[in-house]
C-alpha cells in the first residue's frame, strides 16, 4: 500500500506521451542512417548506415551501465556520480518534480545519447574503420555526451546556473557538431577529397531520411517537457514552425546563389531548422520560432558553402547543421525568451543576465566537446588504427568491413554451402 501512495504521483497521460515520444526519438537514428547513407557514395552505403545502427547498440548499453549515472545523478558540477550506475534505483517511482516513472525518463534520455553518438559519425564516414568507430562510440557516449548532458540537462553547472536549454542545444547539437570537427581533423580527409567530385549517391534517401528525422523530432522536442504540459505543447508546435521557416529561407539562399532550389539543400534545411528550435522550443513564442528558423539558416548555409572550399573533410557537415545551428538556438534564447512562454526573459525583455547564461554555454560546451573528442581520438589512434589502407577506401567500406554490398545484383555470385565449400581463391599474382 505504501508503494501505491508514491506511485500516485505518476500521471498516465504524461507517461503515455513519453512512451510514444521515446519511440519517436529512437526512430530518428535509423532515419539519420538513411539520410547519411544517401549522402555518401554507393560503395559506402551500408557502412554509413551501420554506424548509426551501431550507435543504437553501443550507446544504449553504455548509457545503461554508466552514462545515465554520469549525466543525471548528483555528483558535482562537472560530472555525475555512480548513484544510478547499472540502473540502480531506476524504477517506477518518478524523480522529484516529474510525473513519469524514472524508468521511462531513463529510456527517453537513452534515445538522446544514441542519436547524438550517431550524429558524430557523419564526420568520419567513408574512411574510419568500423571496429575503431565502435570503440570510439562507446567511449564518446560516456566521456563526452555523459558529461555535457550533466551540464545541460542534469544537475550540472550550466543547468543549475540558469542556462536555458530545452531539448539539447548543449548536449546533443553543440556536442555532436564540435566533436565532429575534432573527429574530422584527427581521422583526416578521405583520400579522394579535393581531387574528385564526391557526390551523394541517392538524394531520395536524403529527403526521406530528413523527413523521418523531422517526424521523430516532434518526440524529441515535444517530449522534452517530460509530459503534456504547456511547454511540451509549445515545443511541439515550434518544431513544425521553425523548420518550415528555415526551409523557405534556404530556398531563397539557394535561389540567390545558384538560381535553383536544391533537394539536398532542402533536406539540410529541415535538419538545421529542427536543430535551431531544439534548445529554444519550450521558451520562445511561435512567432519567434518562425524568426529563428529564418535566422538559423544564414550561418549554417554560409559555413557549408565555406567548408567545402577548405581541406577539412568534415564530410556530412555535422558542425554546420548541428553545432552552429545549436549554437544559434542557444544564443537566440538569450535575446528572445519570455517568461510568458515558459522561459526566462531574454535581453529584449529586459534581462541581460539570461544572455550571459546562454553565452557561457555557447562557449563552454563547444570547447569541451572539441577538446575531449580530439584527445579521445588521439589516444584511441595510438592504440588502434582509425583507418585502413588506401586500397580499402578505394574498394569501399561495405565490402571491406561488412562483406556485403548495398546494391548487390547476385549475378555471377556462386552459392557457398557445406556441400560446395568456397573454393580457395588462386590469385594469378599476390595482390600484396
Amino acid at each position, binding site marked *: 500500500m505504501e508503494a501505491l501512495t508514491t506511485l500516485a504521483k505518476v500521471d498516465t497521460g504524461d507517461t503515455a506521451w513519453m512512451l510514444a515520444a521515446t519511440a519517436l526519438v529512437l526512430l530518428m537514428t535509423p532515419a539519420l542512417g538513411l539520410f547519411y547513407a544517401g549522402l555518401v557514395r554507393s560503395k559506402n552505403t551500408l557502412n554509413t548506415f551501420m554506424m548509426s545502427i551501431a550507435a543504437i547498440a553501443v550507446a544504449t548499453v553504455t548509457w545503461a551501465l554508466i552514462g545515465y549515472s554520469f549525466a543525471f545523478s548528483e555528483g558535482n558540477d562537472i560530472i555525475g556520480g555512480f548513484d544510478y550506475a547499472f540502473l540502480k534505483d531506476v524504477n517506477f517511482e518518478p524523480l522529484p518534480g516529474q510525473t513519469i516513472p524514472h524508468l521511462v525518463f531513463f529510456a527517453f534520455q537513452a534515445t538522446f545519447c544514441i542519436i547524438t553518438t550517431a550524429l558524430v559519425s557523419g564526420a568520419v564516414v567513408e574512411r574510419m574503420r568500423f571496429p575503431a568507430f565502435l570503440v570510439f562510440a562507446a567511449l564518446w557516449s560516456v566521456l563526452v555526451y555523459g558529461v555535457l548532458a550533466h551540464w545541460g540537462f542534469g544537475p550540472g553547472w550550466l543547468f543549475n546556473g540558469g542556462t536555458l536549454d530545452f531539448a539539447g542545444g548543449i548536449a546533443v547539437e553543440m556536442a555532436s557538431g564540435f566533436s565532429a570537427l575534432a573527429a574530422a581533423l584527427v581521422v583526416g580527409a578521405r583520400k*579522394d577529397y579535393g581531387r574528385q567530385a564526391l557526390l551523394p549517391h541517392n538524394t531520395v534517401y536524403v529527403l526521406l531520411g530528413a523527413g523521418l528525422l523531422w517526424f521523430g523530432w516532434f518526440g524529441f522536442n515535444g517530449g522534452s517537457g517530460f509530459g503534456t504540459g504547456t511547454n511540451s505543447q509549445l515545443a511541439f508546435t515550434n518544431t513544425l514552425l521553425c523548420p518550415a521557416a528555415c526551409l523557405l529561407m534556404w530556398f531563397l539562399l539557394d535561389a540567390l546563389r545558384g538560381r535553383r532550389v536544391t533537394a539536398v539543400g532542402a533536406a539540410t534545411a529541415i535538419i538545421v531548422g529542427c536543430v535551431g528550435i531544439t534548445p529554444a522550443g519550450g521558451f520562445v513564442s511561435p512567432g519567434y520560432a518562425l524568426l529563428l528558423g529564418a535566422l538559423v539558416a544564414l550561418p549554417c548555409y554560409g559555413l557549408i558553402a565555406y567548408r567545402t572550399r577548405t581541406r577539412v573533410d568534415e564530410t556530412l557537415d555535422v558542425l554546420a547543421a548541428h553545432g552552429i545551428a545549436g549554437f544559434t538556438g542557444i544564443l537566440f534564447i538569450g535575446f528572445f525568451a519570455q517568461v510568458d512562454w515558459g522561459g526566462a526573459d531574454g535581453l529584449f525583455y529586459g534581462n541581460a543576465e539570461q544572455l550571459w547564461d546562454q553565452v557561457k554555454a555557447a562557449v563552454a560546451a563547444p570547447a569541451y566537446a572539441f577538446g575531449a573528442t580530439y584527445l579521445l581520438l588521439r589516444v584511441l589512434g595510438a592504440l588502434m588504427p582509425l583507418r585502413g589502407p588506401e586500397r580499402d577506401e578505394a574498394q569501399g567500406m561495405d565490402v571491406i568491413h561488412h562483406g556485403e554490398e548495398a546494391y548487390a545484383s547476385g549475378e555471377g555470385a*556462386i552459392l*557457398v554451402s557445406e556441400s560446395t565449400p*568456397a573454393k580457395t581463391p588462386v590469385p594469378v599474382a599476390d*595482390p600484396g
Partner: protein
Amino acid sequence: MKLVIGIVRPEKTNDVLEALYRAEVRGISMSRVQGHGGELDRVETYRGTTVQVGLSEKMRFEVAVSDDFVQPTIDALCDGGRTGQVGDGKVFVVPLERAVRIRTGETDQGAVTPVGAS
C-alpha cells in the same frame, strides 16, 4: 585507325579521363562492366546465404583513334589506371574497318578526328 579498349578500376576513372584529356584524346565512350581477372574472389554473406563473388566492377573505355593517336591513348590508359596491384585492368587494341560520323556522313579519318581539331 584503331579501336582502343581500356578496362580499368572504377576508382581510377577520373585519373584516366584526366590523362586522356592531357593527351588530347577527346572522343570516348565509357561504360560500367563486371569482369573477372586475377583478383581474389570475395566472399559475402547475406543472412546465412554465403556467396563467392568472382566478378569485380570495372570501367570500360572505348576510344576510336587515328594511327597517330594509338600510342598516346594507350599510354594515357596505362598511366591513369595503374595502381601497381592486381586488378588494374587491360588495354586491347583492335583494327577498325570503318567509322562514320552520323551528323555529316564523314568517314574514317575524318570521322574519328574531333570537331575543331585538324
